[in-house]
């Protein structure tokens, strides 16, 4: 009897070990869930709560949550230029990133040959220095007595007292520069997966290289395009470092407003409301975008 039951029990044990108990999956999820709870759910509630603070409170006298929905209206009324400007700058920067990034990713994926890995490392290399430091260096590059301004003045793109630093051009350039790798990498991942024989086949079927690109390469790279544009647009819309260092008072983005409302003005109600609005706006835009482009596989 013993000889017969023993193997049976062994099988059961193995099954338990491989398939796991009922709760194993939950235990494995626990650390991640706890992390999300602490660093996403709680701050999220705290932020939404701040957006509903009584606007007459202050940091010193304390804020009560009075569900004052009017905060949203006030925030939009006071800061819609900055909101629109953020979306405009982020959109423009995303577009420029897409054009530059696509060409770069295409070249790395199809034309780089043995330089491919080196080029990929070069795309990531800027991350080895701090974001802030790299943005500050742009101040030197674009400065009024720098070579770019000199050159632009000589060829009369800029007037003799024209400048680049602290203009919209500098801010958008800064954003493009800072977020370009986030565009290049997903594009590269998408392009690299494309089977070269498909493009050859298009050629065999008398498609011009132009047609082949728009009928074959571009549609197949769409998941990369969607991922890249999202990864660029979302952080760019909330960015405030580029506008702060490279812009002027006329280039204020919504991130700058939120930062100053929290730190210098200390108007938590307005700051919270504006943050929630920005978040809702971005989520909304992204949803519409994904629906429109209709891609299910994000890389």
């Amino acid at each position, binding site marked *: 009897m013993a000889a017969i039951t023993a193997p049976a029990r062994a099988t059961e044990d193995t099954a338990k070990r491989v398939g796991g108990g009922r709760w194993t999956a939950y235990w494995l999820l626990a650390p991640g869930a706890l992390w999300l709870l602490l660093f996403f759910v709680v701050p999220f509630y705290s932020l939404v709560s701040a957006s509903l603070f009584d606007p007459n409170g202050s940091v010193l006298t304390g804020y009560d949550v009075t569900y004052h929905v009017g905060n949203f209206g006030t925030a939009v009324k006071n800061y819609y230029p900055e909101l629109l400007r953020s979306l405009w700058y982020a959109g423009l920067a995303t577009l420029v990133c897409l054009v530059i990034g696509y060409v770069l990713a295409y070249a790395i994926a199809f034309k780089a040959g043995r330089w491919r890995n080196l080029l990929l490392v070069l795309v990531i290399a800027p991350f080895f220095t701090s974001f802030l430091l790299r943005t500050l260096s742009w101040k030197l590059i674009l400065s*009024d007595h720098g070579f770019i301004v000199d050159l632009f003045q000589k060829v009369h793109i800029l007037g003799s007292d024209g400048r680049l630093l602290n203009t919209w051009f500098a801010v958008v350039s800064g954003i493009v520069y800072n977020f370009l790798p986030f565009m290049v990498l997903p594009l590269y991942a998408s392009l690299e997966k494309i089977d070269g024989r498909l493009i050859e086949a298009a050629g065999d079927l008398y498609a011009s290289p132009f047609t082949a690109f728009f009928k074959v390469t571009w549609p197949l790279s769409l998941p990369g395009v969607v991922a890249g544009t999202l990864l660029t647009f979302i952080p760019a819309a909330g960015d405030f470092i580029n506008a702060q260092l490279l812009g002027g008072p006329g280039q204020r983005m919504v991130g700058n407003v939120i930062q100053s409302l929290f730190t210098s003005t200390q108007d938590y109600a307005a700051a919270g409301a504006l943050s929630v609005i920005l978040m809702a706006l971005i989520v909304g835009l992204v949803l519409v975008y994904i629906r429109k482009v209709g891609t299910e596989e994000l890389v």
Partner: protein
Amino acid sequence: MVDTSGISRRTVLRGGAGAVFGLGSIAALKGFGTAGLKQDPATCTSTDVSARDKRFVISNWPLYIDEPDKGYHSTLQDFEKQTGIKVSYTDDVNDNSEFFAKVKNQLGGCQSTKRDMFVLTDWMAARMIDVGWIQPIDPAKVPNLHENLIDSLAQPAWDPKRAYSAPWQSGLTGMAYNKKYLKKPVKSFGELLTRKDLTGRVTMLTELRDTMGLIMLSQGTDPADFTDHQWAQAMDALTKATSDGQIRRFTGNDYVQDLSAGNVLACEAWSGDIANAGDDNLVFVPPEEGMMIWADNMLVPNLATHRGNAEKWIDFYYDPHNAAKLADYNQYICPVKGAQQAMEKVDKDNVENPLIFPTEETLKQTHRFMALKEFQTREFERQFSNVTGV
């Protein structure tokens, strides 16, 4: 059976769960309100362990104290040697509001900031004393302070007896220009706002009281006593200069780099910065309309455990010789009487330096900013930051 008209049990359950979650969430939001931050220094206290624990922790602004060099003992080293107290000195105060945000939760909740002293500008010092975050300093322990503090700083409205605060350094806010790039010097502050050849080449400071004070002076308003209408007038001038592109940017301490590089031709500036910049092309100019004067104050927060050592520190820096050594490095206004005589021995070149020892004449042209009520502060800060972007 009740007719559910095609609504399944599952849908109802889901809807119910959703509603409960939604309502629960809305109720949970209530818990995130913030408490008031007022304290009473008489009840929020700790024991002073200065006598047995010879340590002292201070936070100050960057580049605000002399540093030891070959053959030169800094004032801090002198202090340690003289008293046997070990000083831990950190320069982590970059901005008044930012520092306020850093310590507000501890001080507002009667918890220790782990600091025995920090140094903040008048208006912020006033604000902190007002909400009861600052310990009084025993006048008997700081005889030098009450004997040597210069008259112009002795009785600020917010601490008339200097019972809670002692000025570290004082300074002037005026203008500066780069003579390498700007051939026609600026004389009045109004020029910064209107001169056409400066368009886009001017920066102003993000300190509301400095910038708005100077604009008011240029409009003939007294910044120490102004009406809402006069404030609005000054605000209009600032808004116009900003939207016209006259003002390129609003800055903190970082304006010196732009001025040096020639990106900015003329700007609003702090006196000591220009002297310390190490660039001979930069010139500090007192505007014809007058200057703003301010002081940064040493404060001992609630629950600081080395108040006795802090008092020794204050007393030490109010000794004229030590004050002269410090001012020789800082180039800011020295708040200590007798330091000018002591400067003879420290550095002869600086005895007549008007930035360190301003004459009565100069001091007559300086102005202070009106003390603001809490609701005014909020409203003014909001308007100001809407224009400046900080």
